[in-house]
């Protein structure tokens, strides 16, 4: 049976090979998507280039003394961001300690069948909504709710335990602790969501094996589930730390913008991001270049932390998928 192509196609058929337009549009569109993919990479490089380039003159002028200097005086042209670097790391670590404890506890509570699924979902959504509130609103809430609520307790602690370096100043208004507390609320959803994923990716078999051996619920959690998901949870903490380092508004409103290095939880301080937020709008020519240098330092720190976090998360997922069939 010989097939003649033309004979088989009914004369009223709408089928036809792609027209020249179809083919050229196909090529253009594919090229377009490739172009925008490249643009994403280009955008990241351009951001790095732009900030580093604008910071370059200040880097040349001030060098390393900028990182170790402790005064910020635009009139005398003296700039140092050591207090800001200290404040950034200190506030982020405090926030990580509080937010990490809460976040991981919540993740455990919401993945290990403590609650009926419906209630689990309700709490999960509430914790996710915490992330939806804009940071400037948290700042406003911090100023008018957290600080007044905290002040009596803080000053009582200062009076009675003032010899401990953490409490050696009184809380007169903005300060490190209210800032770190609000910051911890803001990193909590990240930490709890990422560690919830890590916890729920632990195979059920492992948990059931532990129960079968007679473990109590928490012996199973502490002995089996947490160690298995440790990499993922650690990644969650690192990502939360990265979030805390770059958070701006709540800190700019609550930390007090004071250039000092202090261990005290109640003394005002400053962070790199808050410094940028507060000084940039009114900066002169020289201060602007210097602020670009501060932005460069902030970018270097956050990029480093996020790189480490992403690497850990990648290892966590490949580790689990490699081990479990």
């Amino acid at each position, binding site marked *: 049976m010989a097939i003649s192509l033309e004979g088989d196609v009914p004369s009223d058929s709408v089928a036809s090979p792609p027209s020249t337009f179809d083919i050229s549009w196909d090529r253009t569109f594919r090229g377009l998507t490739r172009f925008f*993919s490249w643009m994403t990479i280009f955008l990241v490089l351009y951001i790095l280039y732009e900030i580093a380039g604008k910071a370059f003159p200040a880097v040349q002028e001030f060098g390393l003394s900028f990182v170790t200097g402790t005064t910020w005086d635009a009139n005398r042209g003296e700039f140092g961001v050591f207090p800001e670097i200290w404040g950034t790391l200190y506030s982020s670590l405090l926030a990580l300690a509080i937010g990490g404890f809460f976040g991981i506890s919540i993740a455990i509570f919401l993945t290990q069948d403590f609650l009926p699924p419906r209630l689990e979902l309700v709490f999960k959504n509430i914790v996710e909504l915490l992330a939806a509130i804009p940071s400037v609103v948290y700042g406003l809430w911090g100023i008018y709710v957290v600080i007044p609520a905290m002040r009596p307790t803080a000053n009582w602690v200062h009076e009675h335990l003032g010899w401990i370096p953490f409490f050696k100043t009184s809380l007169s208004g903005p300060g490190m602790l209210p800032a770190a507390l609000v910051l911890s609320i803001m990193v909590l959803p990240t930490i709890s969501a990422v560690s919830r994923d890590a916890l729920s990716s632990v195979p059920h078999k492992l948990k059931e094996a532990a129960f079968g051996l007679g473990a109590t619920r928490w012996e199973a959690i502490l002995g089996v589930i947490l160690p298995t998901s440790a990499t993922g949870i650690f990644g969650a903490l690192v990502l939360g730390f990265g979030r805390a380092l770059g958070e701006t508004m709540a800190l700019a409103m609550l930390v007090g913008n004071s250039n000092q290095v202090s261990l005290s939880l109640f003394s005002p301080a400053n962070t790199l991001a808050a410094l940028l937020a507060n000084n940039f709008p009114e900066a002169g020519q020289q201060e602007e270049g210097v602020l670009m240098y501060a932005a460069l330092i902030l970018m270097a720190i956050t990029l480093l932390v996020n790189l480490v976090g992403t690497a850990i998360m990648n290892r966590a997922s490949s580790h689990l998928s490699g081990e479990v069939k």
Partner: protein
Amino acid sequence: MNDSDSNNSAGIDSDSEEIELTRSFADVDFPRLERSLRHPRTLFSSGLSLMTGIVTVVACIPLFSVLIMLMYRGGKRLGLELLTETPPSAFESGGGFGNAIVGTLTMVGIAALIAVPFGILAAVFLAEFGPKSKTASAVRFCAKLLTGFPSILAGVFAYAAVVLLTGTYSAPAGGIALSILMLPIVLLTAEESIKMVPKKMKEAAIGMGATQTQVVWKVILPTALPGMLTGVMLAVARAAGETAPLLFTALNSNYWIVQDGELALMEPTASLAVLIFNFSGVPFESQIELAWAAALVLVLIVLIINIGGQLLSRKRVLR
């Protein structure tokens, strides 16, 4: 227990069996097997359960505290004049922030116009045309870096790249700063939702002779639309609440973006978030009240967009 089992199955010498049985049961310490709070193990376990439960409930307090304070302090001022008037100066009472709402919408709109096509086209490449290519993994890596990128640095970048170039603070500069924050959200969620489109549907279209581009436009994008919309709405909600990138790109303004019938796009532009920030630190009661009212409006906008986006994706899962 094992001993008694084996003896049962043997079951010839009844006397020795009875002795064996009682002895093996005597070995078992029954009170220890009961679940009772008197044992340190169970006590420890229940204690920790209680603690995590309390911690979870405590973590919900800030959300409700914020919402209640917003309604209490911001709700007082709710009224139509908030939407139609411009902010008061220090000693005036009344006023509103209509210009800031318009400004926020304008800048989020500009940001969405840039980030949505950009992100979705890149996502189509990542999910369809070259999912395993080196470009794709590099793009994914860059997008993940951008998710963790501090918002203030997006502002610094837009300042350096746009404000210094155009010589003025403007709405487009603010929009560009916001688009950098929206891009990774749009891109990564769009990629995920395109990947969820069943392979069969694509193959059916290819089998009928469609070009890859036709498959994308006629099959993949319509099917993945709800998921992509969720991503877009989450990104819009995030951008609407951002302050830091606008502080020194759009600055602030007490005037409407449309002045005397002319669109003043290349001028400093007001936004809700920056207005809240500026008014939060002032000693004037009427401006502080306005900051609370603006915060209430902002949170309402953000929450509505957010919940709307999540409902979209939930519907998709049910179907």
